[in-house]
């Protein structure tokens, strides 16, 4: 793999040149989470389920597709933890005696910042993978490399 090193993202060529269909499906795995975010708000689990279904549907697909489906799924997992905590905190404020504090607002802002970063990174990756360019995210890329292996 050839890489152009960025701060949080590695951009380069995959072990092989992905075909047109592969690039499209890989790109769709990211788009899936974006659409699900819009459709599933405010429930934080919808986008995870969407990417999980997409992952299961493509688990027997080519290496490039599997790799990107896995990265899309893993990236959703961490946001799920952040969002679930924020979601239940908000619910407890609405329905119980918990009141709005600066601590809560700071958490929500931090969660929004992470979601926004993830959102932008997902859009960027969806565009690049559509062109057949391989994108590895900070941490998630390495994690995907550990989980997703080439069958050949």
């Amino acid at each position: 793999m050839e890489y152009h090193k960025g701060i949080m993202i590695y951009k380069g060529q995959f072990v092989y040149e992905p075909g047109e269909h592969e690039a499209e499906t890989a790109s769709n795995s990211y788009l899936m989470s974006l659409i699900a975010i819009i459709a599933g708000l405010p429930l934080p689990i919808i986008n995870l389920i969407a990417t999980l279904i997409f992952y299961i549907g493509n688990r027997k697909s080519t290496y490039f597709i599997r790799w990107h489906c896995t990265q899309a799924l893993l990236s959703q997992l961490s946001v799920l933890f952040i969002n679930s905590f924020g979601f239940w905190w908000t619910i407890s404020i609405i329905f119980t005696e918990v009141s709005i504090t600066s601590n809560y607002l700071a958490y929500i802002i931090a969660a929004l910042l992470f979601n926004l970063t993830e959102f932008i990174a997902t859009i960027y990756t969806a565009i690049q993978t559509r062109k057949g360019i391989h994108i590895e995210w900070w941490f998630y890329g390495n994690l995907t490399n550990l989980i997703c292996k080439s069958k050949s």
Partner: protein
Amino acid sequence: MRKTLIQGVITILLFFGTWFVLKQIDWVKVFNVQKVTNKTEQKLGELLWAVFSKNEKENTSVYVVNSLDSIVTFICKANNIERLSKKVHILDNEDINAFALPNEQLIIFSGLILNSENQEELIGVICHEIAHTELNHVMKKLVKEIGLSVLLSMSAGNAGSEIIKETAKILSSSAYDRTLEKEADIKAVEYMVRAKINPEPFANFLYRQSAVGNNSPTDLTWISTHPDSKERAEYIIVHFKQSKLTDFKPILNKRTWEKLKDELKNSK
């Protein structure tokens, strides 16, 4: 593997670090998060006050009203609380009681004032009730105990007078849950410290009233509905000691305080 692990830890730290840094800012003030006194709360406040004004005698003596007004205004000013939205009603009733109604209404029974040995005891109870209104405990309690749907139908004028009376009873003679009471107590100590009022008599008041218990000729509603008075007195003292405040100033002068009590005795 190791690199991935390190990156994972950094990612987690980055999130908690961002949260920690953002926590240093007072977002509640930045976003001006204030209790929205909505129409439902306003309507409920009017309905519930109507129950008390119908069944109890409100003390409208200029001296009594002005004295209580001085106390509430002083506390609000010292704590940046909007004074105009707070309405104070003094009822001629021997019970030792005070409570908050929706729409930021404070109800104080003359029995509470007459049984307070000094103004600090009364101010402590008033601060506690202001804290309940400021922390939006009143509406939370009502939603929990009566349910939002009943409250909404009440405010829309579709509930019977029995339900409204029952709701009034819940607010005047039952406690908030333990965490809310503690929250209001601690907030009350903060209000008192900022207003340079000694919270120690407030703790003494709780301790004394809990010790008097059932032997008292008057109904100790405020104490009996607020459980663990001894425990409360203790954490009030602990919280106050942390403030290290030693310079105290009374709100009312001694003569005004005595005259206030005389006025209430005469209006019996």
